[in-house]
């Protein structure tokens, strides 16, 4: 059976019914920048880094269904500029002190900034005052670095079956909240081996006493671009899901 096709940057890409544009691209080895998306989980569509142009309209590749005859633009100057702006917004919204962050070199937000050629924050910083939760013996929650991708929410709910996290607040006052009467991580059943403790793309949820195990300079994104790393990890996942 021949598969139907869509076009990404002028190149015909096959897809299977039910795939999103992101999945079709990943399966074909094409990288579309993303942060809140991880093929192991239900698509979310919140960060908007994966914005592509579909037949002239901006859409989120991670949630938009692939369809026959779509003309998708991905790697264009305009879209990369727009993605750079998204990345800048995420940087100024929180407190991201990369040089002193344990996640440095393993952080997808930082890697996205490098990948997109972001050289400054451009916008004034918000310097939010968000509560840090160090109550858990094995896990640190530093809300300053949260980008509201809800990967921990999805991982805890769908993989660990523990529902430890949720998003509270509204608008710019949104914040990650924890499912326990005290609101503290120590009073939840989360364990360092849980998916939710390891899925955070930035340094907001960190496993304690593992800091600097791999020296800076030899870390994931010190050796690979975000595109290489993403495709290598995600291609097999997408293949196994849809074939």
């Amino acid at each position, binding site marked *: 059976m021949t598969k139907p096709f869509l076009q990404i940057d002028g190149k015909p890409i096959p897809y299977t019914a039910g795939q999103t544009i992101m999945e079709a691209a990943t399966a074909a080895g094409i990288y579309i920048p993303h942060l809140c998306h991880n093929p192991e989980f239900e698509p979310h569509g919140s960060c908007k880094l994966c914005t592509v142009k579909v037949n002239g309209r901006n859409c989120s590749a991670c949630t938009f269904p692939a369809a026959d005859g779509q003309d998708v633009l991905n790697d264009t100057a305009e879209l990369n500029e727009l993605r750079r702006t998204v990345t800048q917004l995420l940087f100024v919204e929180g407190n991201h002190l990369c040089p002193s962050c344990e996640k440095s070199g393993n952080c997808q937000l930082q890697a996205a900034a490098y990948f997109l050629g972001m050289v400054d924050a451009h916008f004034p910083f918000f310097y939010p005052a968000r509560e840090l939760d160090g109550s858990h013996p094995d896990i640190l929650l530093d809300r300053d670095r949260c980008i509201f991708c809800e990967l921990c929410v999805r991982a805890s709910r769908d993989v660990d079956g523990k529902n430890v996290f*949720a998003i509270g607040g*509204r608008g*710019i006052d949104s914040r990650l*909240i924890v499912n326990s009467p005290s609101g503290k991580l120590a009073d939840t059943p989360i364990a360092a081996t849980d998916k939710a403790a390891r899925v955070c793309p930035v340094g907001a949820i960190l496993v304690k006493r593992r800091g600097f195990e791999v020296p800076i300079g030899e870390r994931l994104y010190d050796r690979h671009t975000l595109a290489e790393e993403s495709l290598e990890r995600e291609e097999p996942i997408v293949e196994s899901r849809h074939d």
Partner: protein
Amino acid sequence: MDRDENERRIVAGIVENHGRDAHRLLSMLREVQRELRHVSPTAQQTVAETLGVCVTRVRAVVEFYSFLSAAPLGKFDIRISDSITDHMLGSRDIAAYLCDALAIRPGDIRPDGRVSMAFTSCTGLCEQGPAGLVNGYAIPRLTRERVDRIVELVNHDTPLSDWPEALFAVEDNVRLKDRLLANPVKPGASLERVLAQGRETIFEEIETSQLRGRGGAGFNTAWKWRFCYEGPEEVAVCPPGQPAAQAERYVVCNADEGEPGTFKDRVLLQSHADQVFEGMTVCAYLVGARQGFLYLRGEYLYLHQRLEGVLAERRRQGLLGEGILGRKGFDFDIEIRLGAGAYICGEESALIESLEGKRGVPRNRPPYPVTHGYLGKPTVVNNVETFFAAAAITLHGGEWFASVGTEKSKGTKLLSICGDCSRPGIYEYPFGVTISRILDDCGADDTLGVQIGGPSGMFISDKEFGRKLAFEDLATGGSFIVFDRTRDVLEIARNFTHFFAHESCGFCTPCRVGTALLKNLLDKIGDGHGAAGDLAELSRLGRFVRSTSHCGLGQTAANPILSTLERYPELYQKRLKTIDFEPGFDLDGALAIARRLSGRDDENAHLTQT
């Protein structure tokens, strides 16, 4: 019994009364708030335990909706509308006067716990402002005398139920009727016609009318109902050997009306609720729904009891319930669900999330509500006015409706007109009416411009009054705010931009962070600290937020800035203080036209470049 124990019993009782149905979470929390003046962490825990859901689910909802609060509010909780129209009618002065008299500051609760005061987004009383809410009940036309009365009642601790009714009297102010308002439908008349003519004939009438949704976007109503009727494909693939199951379908009336400057749905619900419910019931018959919801914004709490009364009367008359008008199998009923202060819940998929007892975060689309709506089932969501019109079309026929209007916008449209005019209120016009005609009718003169379709719409300058209201030219959900020449365009844009930043749900990055940045940037310029670079930034960021946001809120949030920046660049430039780089144009020279038009050439009308 200690206080905590007592609180837990009250809260658990409320949850029980709602049948421990987690979809009714928002309704439960509204009641807890009303009984205990807040939804404390203990109350949240009790709700979660009784319902068997995570406490985060409850906490997240409490934190999302403006009218719910985890910290105690005053026994009398007063909120003053911060809509631009209330500002123009002096709301800020009245609020200051009120705060003085109560010895309280905005955002505070008085130490004796008696009263708290805060500002709130548009209350929908735009033509009878400055308006406020006391424990959620609307009080229009606040004057110093009325405020004195309120302060007295608060200080005497008079229960709200004993406050004089006159304080709460909300007027209709209908100024111009056309075919809809002039031909109200008698209860049951449209339904009788539906039963006599049959589903297909009525579908055809609605198609012939070419009725488009009155909520703003203007989607063809007949198509929406048709898609819902036909349903998603999975309905067709029933398990083999089992009878073809009919998927549940739902009819939802969107009475969130959060767009500042809009109040036509309020008037329809206040005086024509029967016809709105009739339209919903017609829709239910056509699409095969058995359950309907009226999603009523929290600000219209004062209508709640009255609307329940109308529903009860319709049940009594056999116009709702089982076997409507004696037709076996025609079963449909309507439940009223109240919102709790979140503009985003007017967006249809956020509204459905809210109906399901969640935070109002817009869903990813496709799929659309019409195939995957409430509880994942096919759902029609329409505006109040759409159902109101549909009932009339059912009775009088599609031709009757389509014979006025324009090529792409048939029929008439209800406008809520307010701002600088002598006869604000509700006007019904055939589509295609010009702005200047409307301005004449409502008694506006020396008009600077009009905000059409509310903050998410467009600011039209006095050079564009020949333009027409119609989907072909200026689309609108019905908000029409008039500004005269005493008004400051920048302050208007600022009010609207604050509104969007406050109402952003926070789900997606461009809107969550972008609207906050736009607000800060506009404040910087408005406060006289702007530099030329800030204007370029304003427009670039605005276009970015417009093109990348997840839903209509973010996609329109920059409209007030972009549409005024385009029309009045000189007004923005006039506010700039320093120029931190060499611009590619002569700033002072660019002001020459403005100086000539305004006939002033003093020092302040010039900018020096550094």
